[in-house]
């Protein structure tokens, strides 16, 4: 077998066998138990949030949108309940993404692919589509029989198929419909959509998401997890020997034998496995695998095989959790007669939790101390400085004042820097010569041109730091920015 083959010895091959495999349809059987209940609960929660959140109202005062969660692209604002973010604050999303990524890592280190099995949209919608299919066409055996039947279709069968696809499309359409509501005032958009006055973009997005939901949850299903998704590959690199994955406890299950034979063996004092090879774990699996083959990439670790096996074990009067959240270390320990060890606190989980706490803490701190008055200053680049007829030096700056409050504010501009410096705000100085003041509209920014003039003899330094203060006259709030005053 292990003889060396040199390239010149290779001969052309006529038949490679099948290059492309036909899709084997998976017919998961219905199951009930702890994990199924958890899955139903999480599905209800996730879909409930997704479909109804856009309709939740949040009063932000007159003129501001009253939608609790809204991505307002035209006005470049993001609203989340009491939080309103501007485009220059996207770093919050960076923080959220870091937390999301590390959260996934943490879940993975503790309980394997919790995300895949319970929370991933692909899993949630596929689960929902399977539920519809089961309701209309019956359970695993019936569906397999109907699909395999070569008899000409009767009206009943046709109506079943039509009904199933109609409900699927309805769910898919609702999924796309809910998506666009996050980007517009939901009640208004719903009214526009049903009267066919909605924006074309909304219809296009609904169509796209209807198509993807229908295809991915109705047809692609486990193929998405096995062939398309990068996460199974990444998580293989992230898992460790202590992570609790859905595991067939082969120390208990092997050697597989019938209930009767096992009972006989036990009566004789011989070791007997608990697995009776009923294949219920395979029948309920949404990706169609056999968990008894060990941890594998196709396994989304939804725990439904645990429920199936527990049901059987209860029936035959053996202890449950022949399949359970466990790891190989404990299987070996049990074999050696040692008690299993569950190590949730380890360097990996502590580090992940610490990163989440750190980033989360930084975000909360930043949000809590977030100023509703902000100022940015940019020094003119050309010219950097101008010499005036009396020999004094003038620098020009572009200032942007941001008013993140829900009302108009009167803002005074002051500077602190070069000796005897005079500040002019172009456009404003003719109205208020001693202390330039401007009005910044509610939830808006104002760009100003600032001219700072200082006599050269009092300011011999080539570059002097300047502080720009903007003061809200009404509230007394001050925001500052620094730049330099430069001589030519």
């Amino acid at each position, binding site marked *: 077998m292990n003889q060396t083959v040199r390239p010149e010895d290779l001969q052309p091959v006529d038949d490679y066998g099948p290059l492309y495999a036909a899709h084997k349809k998976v017919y998961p059987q219905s199951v009930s138990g702890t994990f199924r209940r958890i899955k139903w609960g999480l599905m209800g929660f996730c879909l409930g949030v997704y479909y109804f959140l856009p309709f939740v109202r949040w009063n932000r005062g007159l003129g501001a949108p009253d939608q609790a969660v809204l991505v307002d692209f035209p006005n470049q604002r993001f609203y989340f309940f009491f939080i309103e973010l501007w485009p220059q604050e996207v770093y919050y999303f960076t923080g959220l993404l870091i937390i999301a990524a590390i959260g996934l890592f943490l879940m993975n280190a503790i309980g394997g692919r919790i995300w895949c099995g319970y929370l991933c949209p692909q899993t949630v919608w596929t689960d929902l589509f399977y539920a519809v299919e089961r309701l209309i066409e019956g359970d695993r055996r019936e569906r397999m029989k109907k699909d395999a039947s070569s008899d000409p279709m009767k009206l009943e069968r046709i109506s079943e198929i039509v009904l199933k696809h109609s409900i699927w499309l309805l769910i898919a359409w609702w999924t796309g419909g809910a998506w666009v509501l996050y980007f517009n005032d939901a009640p208004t958009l719903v009214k526009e959509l049903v009267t066919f006055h909605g924006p074309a973009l909304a219809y296009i997005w609904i169509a796209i998401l209807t198509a993807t939901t229908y295809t991915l949850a109705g047809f692609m299903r486990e193929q998405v997890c096995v062939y398309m998704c990068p996460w199974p590959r990444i998580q293989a690199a992230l898992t460790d020997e202590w992570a609790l994955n859905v595991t067939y406890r082969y120390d208990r299950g092997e050697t597989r034998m019938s209930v009767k034979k096992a009972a006989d063996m036990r009566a004789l004092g011989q070791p007997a496995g608990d697995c009776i090879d009923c294949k219920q774990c395979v029948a309920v699996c949404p990706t169609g695998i056999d968990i008894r083959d060990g941890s594998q990439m196709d396994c989304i670790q939804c725990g439904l095989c645990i429920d199936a096996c527990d049901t059987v074990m209860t029936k035959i009067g053996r202890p449950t959790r022949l399949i359970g959240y466990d790891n190989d270390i404990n299987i070996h320990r049990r074999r050696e007669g040692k008690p299993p060890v569950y190590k949730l606190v380890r360097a990996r989980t502590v580090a992940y939790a610490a990163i989440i706490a750190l980033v989360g803490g930084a975000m909360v701190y930043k949000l809590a101390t977030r100023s509703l008055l902000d100022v940015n200053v940019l020094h003119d680049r050309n010219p950097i400085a*101008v010499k005036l007829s009396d020999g004094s030096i003038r620098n020009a700056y572009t200032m942007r004042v941001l008013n993140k409050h829900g009302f108009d504010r009167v803002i005074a501009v002051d500077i602190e820097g070069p000796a005897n410096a005079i500040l002019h705000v172009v456009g404003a100085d*003719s109205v208020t010569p001693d202390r330039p003041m401007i009005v910044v509209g509610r939830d808006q920014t104002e760009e100003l041109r600032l001219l700072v003039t200082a006599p050269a003899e009092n300011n011999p330094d080539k570059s002097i730091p300047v502080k720009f203060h903007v003061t809200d006259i009404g509230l007394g709030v001050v925001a500052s920015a620094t730049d330099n005053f430069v001589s030519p």
Partner: protein
Amino acid sequence: MADHTEVDSVSGTTTTGHAWDGIKELNTPLPRWWVITFYITIIWAIGYWIVYPAWPTISSNTAGLFGYSSRADVAVELANLEKIRGGKMAALATASLADIEKDPALLALARAKGKTVFGDNCAACHGTGATGSKGFPNLNDDDWLWGGSLEQIQQTLLYGVRSGHSKTHEGQMLAFGKDGMLKPAEIVTVANYVRELAGLPTRAGYDPKAGAKIFAENCVACHGDNAKGNPDVGAPNLTDKIWLYGSDEASMIETITNGRAGVMPAWEGRLDPVTIKAMAVYVHSLGGGK
């Protein structure tokens, strides 16, 4: 000869029969839908070639059945932009120069428009930052030959300086030396007198009284008794720190000997009145405006 029915004992997968140094290749088939999707993308690409511009020809390219062109898209976008701007531009046309500067929205619009037009038309001489150079005034400072109020700047923009336009600014620095009005020695004397007025160092041994006399006889007509200049004739202030043609003695002697007559073109007729208004506000807002 390959035996494709061989099954790998570890993975349970068939092998392709290929072996390299004893390592055999497993046959892990792709799902069929994957390859079908791949063929669909090929068909899609062919469709794309047909309906959109795709293939280069010798002088142009295939147009595509949809008649799409990114240039046409730009034209539509620009037309929409003009529509959006229409109202604001009308406001710019009717508002007075002073009012434009007081209205933040109009000021921003005038400055934005002015900056673009300045880059296209004025930067060649005055520089992109309007900082000028020798002979071309710096428009950021507060020294104005023909006046630095909004109206005066607009006037200069419309009709230019020595531009040949009937309403242009006239008046020039005479060539006192070349035309024989002053002798070279007198020019040196008066140049040093002007340097003294401006607070610049003077040549050792020059006669201030003679300089004052020459200045009074030849220069005050335009530059004024106190040499502060006169914007009506474009005579610069000789007592300030800004020198268009240089403040060294040689440059000043050259100016007095050969005269100066820089030209600024008239923009009336080349730029529309609203644009010139925006330009005036832009230049005024650079900082030196009076």
